[in-house]
């Protein structure tokens, strides 16, 4: 099994898109949650190596969900994925401890690069 990825996004399209892009790569999607509250429970269940986290979610947003996960799992690696591409979002993502940021619509090459970079930094 490759490195485990958990996808958090209220749209199943993003789950399918990321799964499609990661097919035949060193990464494998092992978990999916459509909201922030579910993300925390899903993380505990599948213990992924990395999480892709949408920001606009029903209930608690992606920032709050990320903070909740990091409280319990401070080594969690979270990449924020959003169509909201402005400085405030990226600053907040960094502040809560996200390891990367991807803008929607995501591209396969940039997704793989962001995922790889997370583990390169860990090994550095």
């Amino acid at each position, binding site marked *: 099994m490759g490195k485990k990825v958990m996808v958090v996004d209220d*749209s199943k399209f993003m789950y*399918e898109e990321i799964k499609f892009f990661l097919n035949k790569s060193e990464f494998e999607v092992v978990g999916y949650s459509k909201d922030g509250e579910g993300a925390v429970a899903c993380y505990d269940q599948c213990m992924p190596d990395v999480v892709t986290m949408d920001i606009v979610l029903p209930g608690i947003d992606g920032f709050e969900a990320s903070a909740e996960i990091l409280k319990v799992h401070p080594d969690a690696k979270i990449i924020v994925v*959003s*169509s*909201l*591409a*402005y*400085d405030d979002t990226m600053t907040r993502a960094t502040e809560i401890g996200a390891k990367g940021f991807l803008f929607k*619509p995501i591209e396969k090459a940039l997704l793989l690069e962001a995922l790889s970079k997370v583990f390169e930094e860990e090994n550095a």
Partner: protein
Amino acid sequence: MESEIDIQKILDDAVRDITKRLAGIDLERAPSSLLEEDDDIASLYTATTGSFQIKVVCHAQTRLLRYIAEKMARRPVEDSEMEEVYVKEYFNILCGHVISKINRLTNGSARIGIPEYYRGFYVVDDCPGGMLEVSYKSIAGNFQVEGRYPEKQ
């Protein structure tokens, strides 16, 4: 409030860019709406909160939305619920790009709401202020986007 021309250009740029990237469709500007009363139409709607208030609604022929959904899914989409999932995400991404650019222009931090999908022509509540409308045609169908916002922001 930024000039109407700026907001309209932002809307137009985002609509064309995202539609091309997600569905491979080249939208061509139409001088006015090509949507007919008896067209099979669906609408997507969202409103922002925060520093900039705008309501964005798009009306499209359902055959265009079906085309967009199938391109995003990379397969035929028979299930109308799944079609709704794809087109709502399409609209979510499009509006995210619009609001991001408006935020940069206004140095603001508006956020978009979760998109809503309606069968038929969804009429936005009257909101005193400005209105923008941009119409498009394509080989896959016709499309119209409206933005309504209070004048002073």
